[in-house]
């Protein structure tokens, strides 16, 4: 088995060899591995060899064993060289040669890079943001929902959900009313947190702090905040922001539906810190007002609540630090208010529901 002319090559790591590995020839046979003369290492039998897929991008076959002088490894990067070994690894086949799905996806990503450059070249130099938007628009909705679910599961364990808060049922009802017919599976929760805040995660997990509920004087005000948050989801603002921040490589993977659990968890963590752009905020205001009108809820509650927060107190409430309030923004919202339409007041006894101060 020694004289394999194919000359499969790999990097050999062993005590006494260069720490960066010795490029060596090797051959694989029924008995085990043997190495070229440059390695001056005795053959090893399969019985002591462990195989795994390894390396930075999981593309190498790493064979490890403990020799008489210490731990050794043969790292095989070349596909043809790997193929000479794989038949002998049947016992370990599942670990060593199963091609993970990610590999297929990566090839797809690489395939895209062949097709895209011409398009990208033209667009990227002038229109980088539009490329990102292009990618975001193509992220399948079920990918987004799946990610959202995993991220929400992560959030649940960290948030003090307070779903039997006296106003929680009202929040759920208002949310349902505002998301009627939506393609997202929305969930609305109250969280025990005194800060005046609310947030929505891509996919439809919406949270309102108990502090915000206490601060609102009517159900319309809460509905206004919910409508705004819901639109951040509907308009994919968070998703867009994340892809912008992470770059096109991640965007392309999301387009291909490539998501993993640890990713979702990290995603959830970072959503809280995400800030929306000014144009996204006014977009959420505008579409939020439209959603309120569609749901037959008086939209003036939205502006009233934001104005009230901006006016009151010296400390800026959390909601305003993530949703910068400006007179300009309020004025824009005001212009959207229907002049000649009457709304029935929502039938909630808010001062009673919101609990004691």
């Amino acid at each position, binding site marked *: 088995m020694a004289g394999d002319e194919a000359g499969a090559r790999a990097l050999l790591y062993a005590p006494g060899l260069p720490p*960066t590995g010795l490029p060596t020839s090797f051959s694989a046979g029924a008995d085990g591995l043997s190495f070229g003369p440059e390695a001056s290492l005795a053959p090893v039998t399969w019985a002591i060899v462990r195989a795994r897929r390894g*390396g930075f991008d999981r593309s*190498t076959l790493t064979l490890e064993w403990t020799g008489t002088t210490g731990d050794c*490894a043969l790292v095989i990067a070349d596909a043809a060289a790997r193929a000479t070994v794989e038949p002998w690894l049947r016992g370990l086949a599942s670990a060593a040669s199963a091609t993970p799905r990610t590999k297929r996806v990566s090839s797809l990503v690489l395939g895209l890079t*062949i097709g895209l450059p011409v398009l990208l070249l033209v667009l990227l130099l002038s229109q980088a943001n539009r490329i990102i938007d292009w990618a975001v628009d193509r992220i399948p909705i079920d990918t987004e929902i799946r990610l959202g679910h995993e991220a929400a599961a992560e959030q649940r364990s960290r948030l003090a959900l307070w779903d039997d808060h006296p106003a929680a049922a009202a929040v759920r009802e208002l949310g349902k009313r505002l998301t009627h017919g939506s393609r997202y599976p929305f969930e609305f929760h109250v969280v025990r947190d005194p800060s005046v805040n609310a947030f929505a995660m891509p996919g439809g997990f919406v949270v309102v702090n108990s502090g915000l509920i206490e601060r609102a004087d009517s159900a319309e005000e809460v509905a206004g905040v919910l409508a705004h948050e819901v639109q951040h989801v509907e308009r994919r603002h968070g998703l867009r922001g*994340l892809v912008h921040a992470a770059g096109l490589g991640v965007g392309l993977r999301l387009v291909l539906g490539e998501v993993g659990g640890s*990713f979702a968890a990290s995603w959830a963590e970072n959503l809280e810190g995400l*800030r929306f752009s000014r144009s996204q905020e006014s977009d959420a205001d505008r579409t939020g007002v439209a959603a309120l009108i569609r749901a037959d809820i008086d939209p003036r509650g939205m502006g009233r609540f934001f104005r009230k927060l901006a006016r009151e107190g010296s400390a800026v409430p959390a909601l305003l630090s993530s949703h910068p309030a400006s007179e300009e923004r309020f004025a824009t919202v005001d212009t959207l208010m229907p002049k000649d339409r009457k709304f029935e007041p929502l039938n909630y006894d808010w001062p009673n529901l919101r609990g004691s101060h």
Partner: protein
Amino acid sequence: MADVIDYEIFGNEMQYVEIELDPGEAAIGEAGSMMYMQDGLTLDTVFGDGSAQQGGLMSKLLGAGKRLLTGESLFTTIYTNQSSGKRRVAFAAPYPGKIVPLDLAALGGTFLCQKDAFLCAARGVALGIAFQRKLGAGFFGGEGFIMQKLDGDGLAFMHAGGTLLKRDLAPGELLRVDTGCLVGLQPSVDYDIEYVGKIKTAMFGGEGLFFATLRGPGTIYLQSLPFSRLASRVFAAAPQRGGSREEGSMLGGFAAGGLLGGLLGGDDE
């Protein structure tokens, strides 16, 4: 295959590398890192990395596509000695640290370094990318997601910020490192992203929330001062920067040096 170049590194903490080219030899460098070049050298900006394998249009496009993904500029500058004598060209490190010469032949033909760490190489060294296939790594260890891949048998140079540490990992040996501090590694080393501690608190400190878990065998290089860390300290110490910061996000730090930064940020920072 790659040109055999001679070099000398000058300086202690702010280094530059001077490369001596025989007639007909050439070096490739990132635009913006060149310090000086002698008369007789011609400077060519080429599409892709100018390596010999890049024959057809398709492979050039593939190379360019990969460079797009890493945020590198699409064009590489080649410095060719067209004269009849030896000529020198020098490339300078962009911030305090050490220049590391990498003999790719001795390293097994391939080496991975952080995207912005690559300084220059002998002509014939192919610049590519290596993907970390686990998505989490890409998203949050932005620095580790896509590494610059140096392929060939010639010399290449990378730059490490601060003090340089070279570690040889034995087979199976584990080491946890800050993703930003890992400046280069052999592709034989396993790489996994792990996150440690509460993100919420770490989000405001900005450091150390993601570790790369490395598993030998192979040689790795660590830098004590990743540029992103230096930059964030400088940024934090700068006088109040206007009121509004809503366009940015907590993820902004991860985006630095990313695709858009690389393409739109110009090359002369």
